[in-house]
């Protein structure tokens, strides 16, 4: 029971790290980006190639996965996404589905369409028994890394100058621009960091989530749930939503395997009907 809770927590933290970038671009910048999972997949594949083919240590590959995905995100934002911010939601959907298709075929062309397994350091396979709870070292690592990241993100958005600029740019881009904030640069940097985090999440989660070219489509709904349910008022909402989703999914698959992912989707529809702006949206927010 507690073991499931622990696994669910690790899973939820992973989802949070992967989806938090989306909660900014989608929730705050109002860009429907269905290709967010492609950045997570990119991070996963970068790690897989680095570790398995080039022999780079796993822990050295993680930051590289972040950097690689962030760079891809930055380049795509500056060259392509910047043109679709102002387009209709339908066009954003079409555009990002196009990117997903390209990413999926591109990856199977470059690396192959079979599932990738990243060689992990041996000690991550350890399991510890704490008070009757079986804790995997790998999941402990995930919770640790993601927990620290969540804290840093929360502080960055709430306390730093950049965080204030981001909030201002999102609340009212025109006025923010008038105050001398480089709104475009703030958005580009945010997009890059969000993509990088997705990539890091993809790298960390490849073992648990499974890494193959269908990754962006398979987890697209999960990311969207995190954002839609978590709302866009800061980082806490998405974090809580991601952890709830992770725990519910693991528990659902364990206790009621015949229903599979059914419960998650049904729950999402109910929540969206009940509170279309998300569970944790601030009153009067957009």
């Amino acid at each position: 029971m507690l073991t499931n809770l622990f696994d669910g927590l690790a899973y939820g933290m992973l989802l949070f790290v992967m989806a938090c970038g989306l909660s900014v671009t989608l929730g705050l910048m109002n860009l429907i980006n269905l290709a967010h999972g492609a950045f997570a997949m990119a991070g996963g594949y970068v790690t897989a190639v680095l570790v398995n083919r080039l022999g780079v240590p796993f822990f050295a590959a993680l930051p590289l996965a972040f950097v690689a995905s962030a760079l891809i995100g930055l380049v795509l934002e500056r060259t392509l996404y910047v043109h679709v911010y102002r387009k209709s939601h339908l066009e954003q959907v079409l555009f990002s589905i196009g990117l997903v298709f390209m990413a999926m075929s591109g990856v199977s062309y470059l690396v192959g369409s079979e599932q990738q397994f990243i060689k992990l350091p041996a000690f991550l396979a350890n399991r510890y028994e704490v008070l009757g709870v079986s804790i995997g070292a790998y999941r402990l690592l995930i919770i640790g890394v993601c927990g620290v990241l969540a804290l840093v993100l929360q502080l960055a958005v709430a306390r730093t100058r950049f965080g204030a600029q981001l909030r201002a740019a999102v609340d009212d881009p025109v006025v923010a621009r008038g105050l001398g904030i480089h709104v475009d640069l703030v958005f580009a940097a945010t997009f890059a960091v969000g993509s990088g985090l997705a990539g890091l999440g993809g790298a960390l989660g490849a073992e648990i989530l499974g890494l193959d070219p269908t990754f962006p489509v398979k987890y697209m709904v999960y990311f969207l749930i995190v954002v839609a349910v978590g709302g866009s008022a800061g980082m806490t909402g998405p974090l809580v939503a991601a952890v709830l989703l992770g725990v519910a999914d693991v528990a659902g698959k364990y206790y009621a395997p015949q229903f599979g992912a059914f419960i998650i989707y049904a729950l999402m529809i109910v929540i969206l009907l009940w509170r279309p702006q998300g569970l944790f949206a601030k009153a009067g927010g957009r």
Partner: protein
Amino acid sequence: MSRAENIALAAASLRKVSAVRAAEIAFWLAALAAFALLPDQALLLSEVTITGLFALSLDLVLGYGGIVSLGHAAFFGAGAYAAGLLTKMGVTDPLLGLALSAAATALLGFVTSFLVLRGSDLTRIMVTLAVAVLLKEIANRIPGITGGADGLQGVAPGPVLGIWEFDIFGQVGFGYSLAVTFVLFLIARRFVVSPFGWSIRAVKENQLRTSAIGIPVSRRLIVVYTLAAAYAGTAGALLAQTTQFVSLDVLEFHRSANLMLMLVIGGTGYLYGGLIGALLFKLVQDAIANITPEYWEFWIGLLLVILVLIGRDRIEAIPRALLRRLRGATP
């Protein structure tokens, strides 16, 4: 001007825009010619026709109702499974099976239409997506009924109207699909040029103003969503009957995504877009698949990205301009 005169004027202008044009007759004559002259392509053309009907149903939702749906395959799949199961349960008459499947999906559309009434584009995208995934999950989890991942096999519908047996070359299947699509197209055409249809377009343009002039917005959306669901279900049922097989593939996300692409290629909001788009998509897909059978999706994706970046209106202007030239004078 008196009220009666105003109404007469409005009716006259509606009649004018809804008049059948020469290009439309040419379009359907071409389809008939394809049936008569290309018997060895019947299987392919039957698939294109069914997909075209499916895209037409998305056009009703998206092009007329303004609802961005990423889960339209839900209705297609539901119709396919309904038709397959009905046939296996002994309802072997294709038209009866078609009508019952359409009714079942209309019911599904009616129920789920309440989910898309509220909320932003994002909420609608997610809800439609979730409904499709949910149905796929159900179909996957009850293999005793749906055949699960193996698909529903042994669907053997009887002869159409008791006369024409389905043949392996797809000739009867194509004729049957084409006839059904034509009839449904006529109904849809009558529907969208009616004052009722125009009021749905008004809802798409501006919900607030539309409700201000006394049009019940929610009810209009429910009607168009239900109708579109029935159309998509009919398309799915046609696929099940003509291919005599249903697999989980009918509910896949790719189907919904590709459908949207077809409709956008063909152009939204004039009903022919879906039919033309389905044909163009198939031609493009085949052309690319001949060059790179494994990675054709990459090029389709690239096409989408370019399409959006250049701007749909600019691309849509090209066939419109051609049509106008065909018609002669600009209306």
